[in-house]
């Protein structure tokens, strides 16, 4: 252990010689001056703690938010007993789950049964490392960040399948099978939708993608007009959003745990803390997906009004003149970034909850068909379209503009008409027994 730490320390020391100035500001504010040898490893520990706290707090808040939003959508009050406005409800639930008996039945595979939730939890949490909460509060800004994200998030399926199989329960098994099929099916459109973003930005680094969106990459320096959501709007964003909801197994894609059919799907047999682990991980994954949507399409941690408000409004200068404390520019900027990031993420989480409140569940065959027959061809056409549009963008060649329009109209329009025909044909086929 000591060797590992020293190795890591050496690695860190060799990489960087200083810590961010806003950290010094923060510590200065609370009256602690950082030691001279405060180097990267300590910085990493602080960063880790911050991410862990932000991530867990986000999840804990989301559980309450889900219940509250669903209650408000159905004219109910929602949890309001534990703490003010029920704020401590999740905590109470967690404590309850902690004290619950952990039941394992005779026929279960004990090892896999325990391993399942852990395996499900692991990637859901590790992907937090890739989410840029601010430009600095980011564990690792890999050049291949987006790819790593999907690589990690696809691991969680293995956890579901393992727990479904280890439960020795028929519903769990069906849930696990469905989950596997669903996760692999929706991963392709998800990745293909991100491919369009990558093509647009020319990088897979998530932070760079955010920076690209706000650097006036398209000649529009003003906030949200330069975001990818505007430029990739209907197709890429919609495909990504639908697929991301499917990836985190939420209504209308919650077939692995469809409570009316499979009772609770893969987590039927789980109780106590193991169930809580599933529960936490699901929400963590939802948060990660929401955050990623914001990063890829909605300008990440930047303000929709262009750049950062604190820079535009010179808040640090105002603060300085008001309380006379110097050099807060970095800290204020970080705080603003994380606020925007959270706000935007929660908007998408809210939309996911709204969808959960409104829509029924798809059937597994429709679900698979929707991905393979609709989303995947559409996302392939989309990539093609984006590529031509990019070409047009670079060359300003009008023929490519026309080509883009042609692909848009013929490709997407033709595809949609084809799908309509397909569905109509299917309906007629279904009606046949009754009509004859």
């Amino acid at each position, binding site marked *: 252990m000591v060797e590992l730490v020293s190795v890591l320390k050496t690695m860190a020391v060799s990489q960087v010689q200083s810590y961010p100035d806003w950290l010094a500001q923060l510590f200065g504010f609370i009256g602690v001056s950082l030691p001279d040898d405060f180097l990267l490893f300590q910085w990493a520990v602080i960063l880790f703690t911050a991410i862990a706290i932000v991530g867990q707090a986000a999840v804990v808040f989301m559980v309450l938010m889900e219940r509250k939003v669903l*209650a*408000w*959508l*159905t*004219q*109910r*009050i929602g949890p*309001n007993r534990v703490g003010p406005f029920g704020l401590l409800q999740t905590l109470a639930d967690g404590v309850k789950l902690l004290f619950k008996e952990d039941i394992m039945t005779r026929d279960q595979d004990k090892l896999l049964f325990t391993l399942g939730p852990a395996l499900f939890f692991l990637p859901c949490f590790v992907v937090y490392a890739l989410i840029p909460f601010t430009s600095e509060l980011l564990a690792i800004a890999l050049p291949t960040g987006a790819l790593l994200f999907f690589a990690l998030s696809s691991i969680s399926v293995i956890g579901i399948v393992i727990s479904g199989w280890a439960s020795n329960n028929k519903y769990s098994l069906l849930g696990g099978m469905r989950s596997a099929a669903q996760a692999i099916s929706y991963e392709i459109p998800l990745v293909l939708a991100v491919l369009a973003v990558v093509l647009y930005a020319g990088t897979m680094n998530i932070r760079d993608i955010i920076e690209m969106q706000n650097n006036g990459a398209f000649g529009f320096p003003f906030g949200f007009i330069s975001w990818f959501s505007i430029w990739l709007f209907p197709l890429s964003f919609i495909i990504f959003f639908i697929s991301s909801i499917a990836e985190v197994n939420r209504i209308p894609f919650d077939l692995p745990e469809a409570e009316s059919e499979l009772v609770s799907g893969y987590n039927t047999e789980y109780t106590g803390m193991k169930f809580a682990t599933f529960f936490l991980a699901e929400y963590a994954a939802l948060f990660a997906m929401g955050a990623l949507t914001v990063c890829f399409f909605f300008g990440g941690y930047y303000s929709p009004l262009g750049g950062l408000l604190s820079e535009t409004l010179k808040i640090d200068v105002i603060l300085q003149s008001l309380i006379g404390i110097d050099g807060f520019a970095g800290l204020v900027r970080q705080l603003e970034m994380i606020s925007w990031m959270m706000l935007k993420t929660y908007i998408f989480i809210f939309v996911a909850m*709204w*969808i959960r*409140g*409104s*829509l029924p569940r798809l059937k597994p065959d429709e679900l698979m068909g929707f991905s393979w027959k609709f989303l995947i061809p559409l996302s392939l056409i989309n990539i093609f379209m984006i590529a031509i549009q990019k070409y047009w963008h670079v060359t300003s060649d009008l023929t490519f503009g026309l080509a883009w329009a042609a692909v848009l109209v013929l490709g997407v329009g033709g595809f*949609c008409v084809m*799908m*309509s025909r397909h*569905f*109509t044909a299917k*309906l*007629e086929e279904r*009606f046949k027994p009754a009509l004859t």
Partner: protein
Amino acid sequence: MSQDQNKNSQVFEGMANIGKGMATVMKHFGRKPVTLEYPEVMPDLSTRFHGRLALLTKSDGTDLCIGCKACAKVCPCNDLIQIEMHRDEDKKPVIDQFTIDKGRCIFCGNCTEVCPVDCIKMLPDFELSGYSREELVLDKHDLTLTGEESDEWRQIRGMNPHVE
């Protein structure tokens, strides 16, 4: 009709209809909650509510029950209502004990209907739980209301308010 559905199965109209449904759900977001926070807010119950069983008394607080056992006869649960009585020197009925096992009562209201003197009644009170089964067996003391309460209830139910 099937023509309609075919049209709607098309991609864009389907999306529009999903949007419409979601907007309708969103309409409820700001509406006032319909749930009552029970222990703080009590539900507004009808005066005819089939709740707690009670024995009304005469206005002066003496027993109204004549021990005819009609209530026990029409009760769908066996031996739920048990009445012990004897007659005093003037051949007037004296109720020694009147027991109702609330835990087995199905609150059908049959007993209240056949009572010839309108003595046994159901009050709009639904908080009837207890900590043990024994607690659920009500005896005459638990069931009997005071004279004033009886008068009040007779008034609410539109019966002759004073019974001598």
